[in-house]
């Protein structure tokens, strides 16, 4: 016999700690504990035996892994939080005593913590980080649209807006947007970055206010982590794409509501060349032929570099935004710039690999130029069109920086979202322009993106009733598909309906006639005796034998089939009794969920059928 084991010294009792015990161990406040949990990604666990984990008590508590808490105890951030507590006390004391100079020196040495190590711990590889930025993006986009108030500082909102713009710039630059969905909650975007699908939700442009039942502190803590995470992720993404991070912000443009256009993407190599050349110049005493290089030449060389490295860098962007390389191009010296591009062109780097030619759908809108009508949301459609290679312009009311004017002849599509109104006093020029352009509703852009091809514009023309907008994310196999049934299932269902209707009619009208009753009896007859009785009845009713036999045969085959299937099911049922308990439960659960899904589908189908029937009726009514 082994040694007696004491209770509570091993197993679940040791592996789990309650939250209050954890706080006691860490010697911090509950708020600090929450903050740490959020930052470190530690969440409660559900022990298999709650009573054992809670040392015999069955009170409802949340449990954490004891190892998680031990791991938190070594966290530098926790130490910093404690330091901050001491600092706050010292500062309050200094202020209370009016010791301004010591308060100032304290303030200068205020303990601050960084989250780099946490980002590294939580996401050991870059792919891990990219996989997990969905929530971060959602939060950033939400806070970018919030008004700043006492709880949410203006600088925070500004930083969020900057991060959001950086992400959009990157997605546009790499053409990695895949799917878009206009939902009632906001716009869902899905991009594919490093083979990871990243989905984020952006609310529609309305002023949101934080409701009172939401704890802002929790959100801000999350946001703190997310800002750091996104900063590092974007840094890596940008540098891997050969761009400078952070992209410089043009303050003037930003003030005039240029949105994303206020940022300019810079090629990192161009910058490095520039600095190289600057160095060269300092060493070479600017020779006479150095002056002869015109700005045009330099621009061309830079372009060739960019083309060699990333062949589908946003052309429009480069035209519209003068890169700083252009600014001081006069100083360029030919030796440096001619030597470098050869090197860079030969080296197959990661970025050249990552910008391999993508599928044709990435350049979906490349041949078109769009004009945004005043009532459409510019941030959404600018992002969409530009990430698929299109060119887009907008009126000044939607912000500055539009690359095309309303009167530009290159505009092929106008995205418009208002009812059709016939304009009385239209000049010839305007009419001509209107006829040359295609006026589509915003859904067309999104549906084109999801379909991966340019759809017919007629369905989406201005003022028309739009076809339903479907989610591109519906992936389940057996889910109800609103598109598939239109041609194949629809016809069948209509036929069935007709049958059913016929049957109903028969029920309504001919129930009294003895022939039908007899035939029905034949159909219902189960065994020989009943069949014979039915035959006699039919004869009496005056039904000819042929039709009776047909009905009887149909009925018998039906019953036979039924019997066979019943036998099979009975066999299966019997085999079920040999399942283990675990298997049986699993089986029942699966069957239950299957049934639920089936039911959902059937209700949707039946609803659709009734809707279609109504439509047909209405059409008939309108025709007659």
């Amino acid at each position, binding site marked *: 016999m082994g040694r007696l084991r004491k209770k509570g010294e091993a197993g679940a009792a040791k592996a789990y700690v309650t939250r209050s015990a954890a706080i006691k161990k860490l010697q911090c406040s509950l708020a600090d504990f929450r903050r740490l949990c*959020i930052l470190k*990604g530690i*969440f*409660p*666990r559900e022990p298999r035996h709650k009573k054992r984990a809670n040392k015999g008590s069955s009170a409802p508590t*949340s449990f954490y892994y004891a190892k998680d808490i031990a791991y938190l105890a070594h966290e530098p951030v926790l130490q910093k939080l404690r330091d901050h507590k001491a600092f706050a006390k010292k500062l309050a004391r200094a202020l209370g005593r009016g010791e301004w100079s010591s308060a100032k020196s304290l303030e200068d040495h205020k303990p601050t913590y*960084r989250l780099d190590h946490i980002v*590294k711990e*939580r*996401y*050991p*590889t870059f792919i*891990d980080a990219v*996989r997990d930025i969905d*929530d971060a993006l959602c*939060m950033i986009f*939400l806070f970018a649209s919030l008004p700043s108030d006492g709880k949410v500082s203006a600088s925070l909102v500004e930083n969020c807006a900057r991060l959001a713009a950086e992400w959009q710039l990157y997605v546009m630059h790499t053409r990695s947007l895949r799917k878009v*969905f*206009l*939902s*009632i*909650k906001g716009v869902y975007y899905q991009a594919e970055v490093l083979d990871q699908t990243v*989905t984020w939700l952006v*609310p*529609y442009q309305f002023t*949101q206010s934080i*409701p009172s*039942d*939401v704890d802002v502190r*929790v*959100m801000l803590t*999350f946001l703190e982590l997310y800002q750091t995470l996104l*900063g*590092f992720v974007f*840094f*890596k993404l940008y540098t891997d794409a050969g761009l400078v*991070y*952070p992209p410089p912000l043009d303050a003037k443009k930003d003030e005039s509501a240029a949105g994303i256009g206020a940022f300019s993407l810079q090629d990192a190599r161009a910058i490095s060349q520039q600095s190289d050349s600057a160095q060269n110049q300092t060493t070479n005493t600017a020779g006479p032929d150095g002056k002869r290089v015109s700005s045009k030449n330099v621009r061309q060389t830079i372009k060739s570099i960019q083309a060699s490295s990333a062949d589908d860098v946003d052309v429009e962007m480069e035209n519209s935004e003068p890169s700083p390389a252009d600014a001081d191009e006069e100083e360029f010296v030919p030796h440096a710039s001619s030597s470098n591009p050869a090197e860079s062109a030969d080296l197959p780097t990661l970025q050249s690999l990552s910008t391999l030619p993508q599928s044709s759908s990435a350049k979906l809108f490349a041949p078109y130029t769009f004009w945004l009508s005043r009532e459409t949301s510019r941030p959404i459609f600018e992002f969409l069109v530009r990430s698929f290679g299109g060119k887009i312009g907008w009126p000044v009311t939607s912000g500055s920086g539009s690359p095309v004017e309303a009167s530009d002849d290159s505009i092929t599509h106008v995205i418009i979202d*208002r009812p059709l109104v016939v304009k009385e006093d239209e000049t010839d020029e305007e009419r001509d322009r209107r006829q040359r352009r295609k006026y589509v*509703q915003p*859904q067309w852009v999104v549906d084109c993106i999801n379909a991966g091809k340019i759809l017919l514009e007629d369905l989406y023309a201005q003022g028309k009733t*739009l076809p339903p*907008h*479907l*989610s591109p*994310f*519906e*992936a389940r196999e057996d*889910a109800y598909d*609103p598109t598939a049934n239109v041609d194949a299932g629809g016809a069948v269902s209509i036929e069935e309906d007709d049958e059913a209707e016929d049957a109903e009619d028969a029920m309504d009208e001919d129930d009294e006639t003895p022939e039908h009753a007899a035939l029905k009896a034949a159909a219902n007859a189960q065994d020989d005796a009943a069949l014979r009785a039915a035959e006699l009845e039919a004869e009496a009713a005056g039904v000819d034998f042929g039709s009776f036999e047909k009905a009887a045969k149909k009925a018998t085959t039906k019953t036979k089939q039924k019997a066979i299937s019943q036998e099979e099911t*009975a*066999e299966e049922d*019997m*085999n079920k*009794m*040999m399942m283990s308990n675990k298997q049986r439960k*699993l089986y029942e659960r699966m069957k239950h969920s*299957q049934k639920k899904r089936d039911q959902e589908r059937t209700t949707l189908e039946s*609803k659709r059928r009734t*809707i279609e029937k109504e439509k047909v009726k209405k059409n008939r009514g309108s025709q007659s």
Partner: protein
Amino acid sequence: MAPTASIKSTKKRKAAAVEDAPAETSFPQEVGLDLGSEGEEDGVEGDDEDDGEVDEFPEIDAGSDSEEEVEESEDEDEEEEEEEEEDSEDITDVDDDIRPFPISKTVISDITGQPKRVYPEIEPDYDSDSSTEDAPNRVGNVPMHWYDDLPHVGYDMNGKKVLRPARGDELDKFLETVEDPNSWISAFDKTAQADKPLTPEELDLIRRLQEGENPDASYDPYEPTVEWFTGKGKEEVMPLSSAPEPKRRWVPSKWEKQKVMKIVRAIRAGRIVPNKPKSEKPQFYSVWNDEPSTHPAPLPAPKPRLPSHAESYNPPEEYLPTEEEKKQWEETEKEDRDRDFLPQKHSALRLVPAYNQFIQERFGRQLDLYMAPRIQRKKLQIDPNSLIPKLPSPASLKPFPVYKSLSVSHQKGRVRTVGISPDGSWAVSGDESGVVSLWEVIVGREVKRWKFDGKIGAVEWCPRMDVSFFVVAIEDHLHFVVPPNLHPTVLSATLAVLSPATLPPQPDTPSPVKWTSVAAASYSADKPLLSIALPPSSGVPKQVTWHRRGDYLATVSGGEGQGGVWIHQISRRHSQAPFKKVKGVVQLVLFHPTKAHFFVATQRYIRIYNLAEQKLLKTLLAGIRWISSMDVHPMGDHLIVGGYDRKLCWFDLELSDKPYKVLRYHTRAVRSVHFHPTYPLFASSSDDGTIQIFHARVFNDLMTDPLIVPLKILRGHEVKEGLGVLQAKWCPRQPWLGKLSTVKGGMADPAKWSHCASDAA
């Protein structure tokens, strides 16, 4: 006003610098306002910039004050006595009752040239002493609300009532505040029950309190320190303590020096730089450039579900909820909703409103991320039907009974038990009314009927082939009955077994069980040939079971005493109780088919005893609440046990004392289980009115598990009074089943399964 004050002050300063303190206190007393003193004070301090403050005071007072002051300043050159006189007059004017003592004044004596304190002279008239002059009301310090309802407010010194002064209404009060210039410095006097202007002292006190000064005007916080022990000639000469002076007083600290030197060295080496700008790490850099750690990454949080068609701003119409669905959605709790939104349809994108739950949903997601416990679940992508075990088709395991071929019934009473002859051609059944019927199995004809008094507990046919008789168990008795129409050789052998010519010798000790037999000569088929009288009050035997050889039989009675188990040996005409004491109530017993083992089932356990060695071999835990039936496989290595809690356990005796398989398929209590003696079949009958037939193949190879295949569910029994099929028995040589039930049976083709059951409904 200010200039006058300053002029006066300068004059005064010329006169005497020390004089200003008493002047400060004396001037305001003249006018009942401290503005003079204030201005003067400022002037004295050389601060002439307080015009604004001075101007704040009401003009009337200021005017009168300044006039007086001017007069005073003009009279400054006059003798001081005059001034003093004035002062004392002032004091009486103000009738200050707060200060009990007259205020002194420090003046420089003309004679000595030293400052001296001068008190105002007291005139010896009636009103000279202000301290004795008092308020007319002498009521004392009593709560004044006692006089609330009375016309007077107290009594004066002569005992006359002091009438309550008239107090106007609110309007009067207001007018008073407007008209009376003193109203803003007056307060309600409780004893006089009227508003009285505050005295300058009180006002001064208020001012001091407001400004956070010491309330005592005469307190000087900047008194020069008096050096008692420092300075020449004042040092203490004698030490206070005789202890020698410690070294630390005069030797510089070594540790301090070390600490300082450490800092000095650090400064010299450039390790400490004062006001060094903080070395800023770049905010973002490539964290992922160095080797990733070998630790596995923490599991990523599950991603939220992607939106479905229903969430679209313009969904297909079938997704829109009907009125009932909407109502139902609104009525359900937020947590219970399967969808957190109601699908809506908007005809244009510009009409889509803001989603009002956006921030809540984000917040909910975050709460999930850090507060919800996460469990990793494997998602099974399998067809649920693949979970059903693949068993050989029942069609390939024929023969087994598939339908009812025959049904016979008892007249009345519930049929409890059935026995089938070892050759399978006869069946005998007993009911609760005491009727035992003998049936021909193939045709279903009743050959003979016996009537016993009392309920029949069990009927069992002797398994021997050379003889033919059966045992009927009734209250306290076992009767051995020989069926009619036997072959003569069999009959003679049977008679020889049951009532031999020479009886075996009686055992030495008298047994409580009595064996009585009828002589073979007087044999008749109507009467039992041999009877065993069990000890009285042992009740109806619940079970009779034969040993395979047909010499021993065991009975279990419900009554008390030695567990009610008896083993009877026919050849020796001897009965014995194998157990002195049994834990629990014995439900069933069984002989092992090949070994000298004996199974005893109590309510929960099954114990296996070795009869030869007389010891317990094994206890089986069935996990059944109440064992109802038990049978052992003809090979002897497997045991099936049925229970009233619907379970059926299959024990592999070689394997473990726990069941190898537990089946729960009957919806009601299992009543009986029986292995087929020759075919690999077993059947279980239950109160739900069904009999289930199983194929049960047992392998000699120890490694292969027994194969159990459910074959057929035989239904068609009416359940009466909660009782279904009470017993089911196999025909020994055919794959037929004999069964009993409380219900009338039907009949069908005897080729498949026969059905000797009956009933009296």
